């Protein structure tokens, strides 16, 4: 199970590390980071306390689609490693013209994407106090 998991996650890990890098670079160039240094905080504290939260925002927004992608994207991996999973099931249903099963799996995937994106949106309010979902513009 180790190797398939690794293969499945590798692409996303690479993308997330890029996102984190970009996010952190952006936050670290902001004015309030200079304020933090001017207070006498150590670089480590500045990064961990002042920059990380903001730098991770883009990563969090990617986590929703990424999780859905990992779950649905497993069909190739399952095929490669001969794992009898949902993805393989989906492919078989298509080639067997089992419409009911194909539709069911599609709906399941759709629900997954929806739910995970909603969870991410809600998680945003915890991370960024400026976002208030209750407030209507």
């Amino acid at each position, binding site marked *: 199970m180790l190797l398939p998991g690794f293969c499945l996650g590798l692409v996303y890990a690479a993308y997330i590390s890029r996102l984190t890098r970009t996010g952190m670079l952006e936050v670290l160039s902001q004015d309030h980071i200079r304020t933090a240094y001017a*207070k*006498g905080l150590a670089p480590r504290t500045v990064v961990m306390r002042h920059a990380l939260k903001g730098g991770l925002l883009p990563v969090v927004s990617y986590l929703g689609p990424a999780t859905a992608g990992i779950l649905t994207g497993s069909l190739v991996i399952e095929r490669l490693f001969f794992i009898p999973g949902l993805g393989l099931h989906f492919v078989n249903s298509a080639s067997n013209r089992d419409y009911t099963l194909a539709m069911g799996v599609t709906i399941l995937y759709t629900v997954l994407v929806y739910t995970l994106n909603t969870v991410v949106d809600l998680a945003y309010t915890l991370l960024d106090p400026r976002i208030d979902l209750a407030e209507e513009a």
Partner: protein
Amino acid sequence: MALLEVRDLRVTFETHHGTVRAVDGVDLALEPGETLGLVGESGSGKSMTNLALLGLIPAPGRVEGSVLFEGEELLGRSDQDLRRIRGNRLAMIFQDPMTSLNPLLTVGRQLTEVLELHKGLARREARARCVQALGDVGIPSPEERLDQYPHELSGGMRQRVMIAMGLLCEPALLLADEPTTALDVTIQAQILELMQEVQRRHGTAIVLVTHDLGVVAGMADRVAVMYAGRLVEKGPTGPLFGTPLHPYTRGLLESVPRLEGAAGHALDSIPGSPPDPAALPPGCAFAPRCPLAEDSCRAERPPLVDQGPERASACPVAAAREEGAQA
């Protein structure tokens, strides 16, 4: 002994377009409890001077010269040493309180961390001190404010928080980088008043960086005028504003809009724009815009020369004319 003594401070950046001299040989001295106004156009090196004092010049920049603060040399000290001074003995408040406060942390967290760091206070004690500090800068119901985020406060409130933050450890010197520029006029007046009050109470010395001459006139004991990274004139506020010695200072003062005077009269301004700091002219940097410029100005850079009690100017031409007029 002077609280702060800056000698021949230079900040240079190596860029693709050549060496940029952001600060080029600045000398300053400041006594405890004194306010020094540092004025000049955008890009004249005012903010860079301040950041250099804190050791916060961004990466490719090089700082040379000498900065004596409370008898200790700050330049060349390790970051660890400087961190003990920053925010503690030497604090800075920044221009735009919207972007200079962390939007993702509560006001309280941003305040208490200073005390936890420098005074070793526990979170609860630090919090109590911060409530008091916010009250001192005129913030109503400080207890509640501590749990709010910067975006929930108004601009004036945020600047008050900034000031409170700067003063938490009762620093000997407060570097204020355009503290009122982002605020509207009534709030500006309140903030300046607050800074003066704080100064009276704690005896804090202030370096006030601004391009607003009105603010300087009301606040500063002494003024230093910067142009293209150099000091062109310094002196006590009253005499300097009364009889400016350098043509640049004159130009600055003349370009202040006045209430009296004919309506429709175009505002005075200094012709031209500041020079490219990567390609400064060989002589006086102000010569291309100066009404008094002579050939000698363009050939050699005039040094800052003492003229009268506590005053100095870097314009030999104006000085010679002055003498000529008196004779």
